[in-house]
């Protein structure tokens, strides 16, 4: 029981990331009719927003301490981050410590802007082109973004830790009446799940309760009709693209303490998120979220030693690497529309 609970919890953080990326993919696909192969790159850019901010925060003023010398007898250089100088030492160090959560504030405008530029500058010109062209051009863009990040930040993962207070783990089992140390779960993963759930809820609420959201939903159902109503749907769709970019970016920001950002993480997540979208049912927002969590949890179960051992006996070590694909194939063979797909979406 506790092992199962632990695996479910472990699957939640990856599942959250899949769900958020898949949500954005579905929004863009549903509203604009474009499959965005650069969406993984947006997730990766979010992560690097966090990296950038943490680097900016430790930019330091170099002063020479006249009273101290290093072991060679030269005057000692002291680095003081500007934030410490401006806000005082304790407040400054707290700010540096909290760079990842702070990066949310930094990432929102950046990602909205990136999304806006992408849509207006590139995607817009591809609405009327064949789907193959859309895939190809966004695929090219993904490579370009990835290579730029690689040139700027290097090829190695950059560890970016969570704030000190969240670095520990929490004995989750005790809370629900289990023995001590039965289910220990890192704080940050719990926060990541809570954060993702909040964003997902916010997106759904936004689509459900605002006029804007209503138009977007109508647009997802039938683009042409809404266009006839005289509503400037294109402008709204641009904004929608920005939101999808921001959602992917925020998913990336908060994911940095769990997985040190590297330049190719976007593509790794994109392929799996596509599988999530397909399993959930193309064009279905709840399907994307549901499938994201399900597959995340499934992956976590497949990485259990008991499960792995079982498959290793069948000469299939590291089954966790391919379990998602296997399940996707089975789902597609039995339910071609995915778990919650509507009829008529992407069916020729």
């Amino acid at each position, binding site marked *: 029981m506790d092992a199962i609970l632990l695996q479910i919890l472990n699957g939640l953080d990856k599942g959250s990331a899949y769900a958020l990326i898949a949500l954005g993919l579905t929004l863009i696909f549903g509203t604009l009719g474009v*499959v965005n192969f650069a969406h993984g790159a947006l997730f990766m850019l979010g992560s690097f927003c966090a990296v950038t901010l943490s680097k900016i925060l430790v930019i330091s003023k170099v002063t020479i301490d006249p009273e101290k010398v290093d072991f060679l007898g030269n005057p000692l250089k002291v680095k003081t981050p500007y934030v410490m100088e401006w806000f005082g030492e304790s407040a400054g160090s707290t700010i540096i410590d909290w760079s990842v959560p702070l990066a949310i504030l930094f990432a929102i405008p950046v990602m909205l802007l990136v999304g806006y530029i992408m849509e207006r500058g*590139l995607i817009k*010109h591809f609405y009327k*082109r*064949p*789907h*193959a*062209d859309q*895939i*190809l*051009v966004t*695929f*090219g*863009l*993904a*490579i*370009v973004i*990835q*290579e*730029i990040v690689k*040139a700027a930040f290097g090829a190695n993962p950059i560890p970016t830790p969570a704030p000190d207070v969240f670095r520990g783990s929490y004995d989750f089992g005790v809370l629900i009446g289990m023995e001590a140390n039965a289910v220990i779960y890192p704080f940050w993963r719990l926060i990541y799940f809570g954060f993702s759930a909040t964003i997902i809820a916010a997106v759904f609420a936004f689509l459900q309760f605002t006029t804007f959201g209503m138009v977007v939903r109508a647009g997802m159902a039938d683009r042409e009709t809404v266009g006839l109503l005289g509503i400037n749907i294109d402008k709204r769709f641009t904004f929608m693209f920005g939101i999808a970019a921001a959602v992917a970016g925020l998913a990336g920001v908060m994911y940095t303490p769990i997985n040190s950002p590297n330049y190719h993480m976007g*593509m790794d997540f994109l*392929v799996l998120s*596509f*599988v999530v*979208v*397909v399993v959930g049912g*193309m064009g279905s927002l709840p399907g994307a979220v549901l499938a994201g969590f399900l597959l995340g949890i499934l992956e976590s179960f497949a990485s259990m030693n008991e499960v792995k051992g079982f498959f290793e006996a069948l*000469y*299939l*070590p*590291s*089954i966790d*690497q*391919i379990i998602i*694909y*296997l399940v*996707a*194939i089975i789902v*597609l*063979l039995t339910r*071609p529309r995915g778990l919650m797909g509507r009829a008529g979406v*992407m069916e*020729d």
Partner: protein
Amino acid sequence: MNTLSKSDKMTFFIVAAISLLAPFILNPFPEGSAMAQFNAGYPDLMQRFAIFGILAIGFNILFGLTGYLSFGHAAFLGVGSYSAVWMFKLLSMNIIPGLILAVIIAGLFSLLIGFVSLRRSGIYFSILTLAFAQMSFSLAYSVLTPITNGETGLQLTLDDPRILDGANTTGNLPVTGLFGLEMRDTFSLDIGAWAFQFNIGYYVCAAFLLLSFYISIRIFRSPFGLMLRAIKTNQTRLNYTGLNSRPYTLAAFVISGMYAGLAGGLMASMDPLAGAERMQWTASGEIVLMTILGGTGTLLGPVLGAGFIKYFENIFSKINDTVLHTWFSFMPDGLENAIVWVLHFFVGKGWHLTLGLLFMMIVIFLPGGLMEGAERIIKRFRAKKGGDSDTTPDTATKPAE
């Protein structure tokens, strides 16, 4: 050869002549001259031209004719390589059994993947093939380590059985060959300052390229090819015309998978090792790029595209900051440094960035690829030559093939 029309015969013989004379054509600059770095007549590079040419020709049979965009073709390339290396380990260093197995296994593998992926079309199909490719990569990289030797890659060892070959007493790893001809054998011809290299491996690859090209022309001109083009333009009408599109697309998928298997087998024949990185999505993307760069759906385009990409990959990867500095040394220092700083992101290790930009540029500005570009130039040239008389819009002409 009466099986080809006049113009197709012409195209085929041009490609054959270029392949045969490639060691001369690709080495226009004398050895040791400043321009020698732009030569491409090296055995391993010429082999790559031919191998990726085969790969792109095969991909074009699927994407160019049916319009089904597969992102998983690198998987078949990898499968072909693994199969061939296993044959070299178990049976013989002769490349023929290796190539046969590579084509068969890749064919079976593509039958399996195609059967599932082709249940959907359009975007769905692309995503499915991408997922399959990524899954195959994971399989090769970790899950199937006993077969693929995981991260290290599959290599020859001294104590492989090699049933058909005699006992190896030399203490060195054996080399791949074709009935006694060693793939690595190169005959060098020095004429003045020029050095031309004739490599057995290259000519074997070129022979397979020509065979592949010939078969591809036949497919393009066959009723089967006509049906594939019909699928691309209107599947509804095709179905209401009494044709079942699924077996047609599946056959095209398997044929192009077998082409990729052949390319993978040849790759292993030239250099007997196989690694998982050959199966990554970036490799699949490169195949797509070669085809669209050359001109999707045209006969010559994919071969051109493959040559173009492999040539510039080779050149760009060799250029480093020092080379750039010598190029721009005539400029004032500040300007020189600025230009070199900008350019160094695009050369050497930055080749992938250039590739990505090229990808976008082609899709945005020249969706028909180099073949369309050439056609446009020829048209403009003709229009100029013929004065303003040539104003008839030729919307009704067939697209170039």
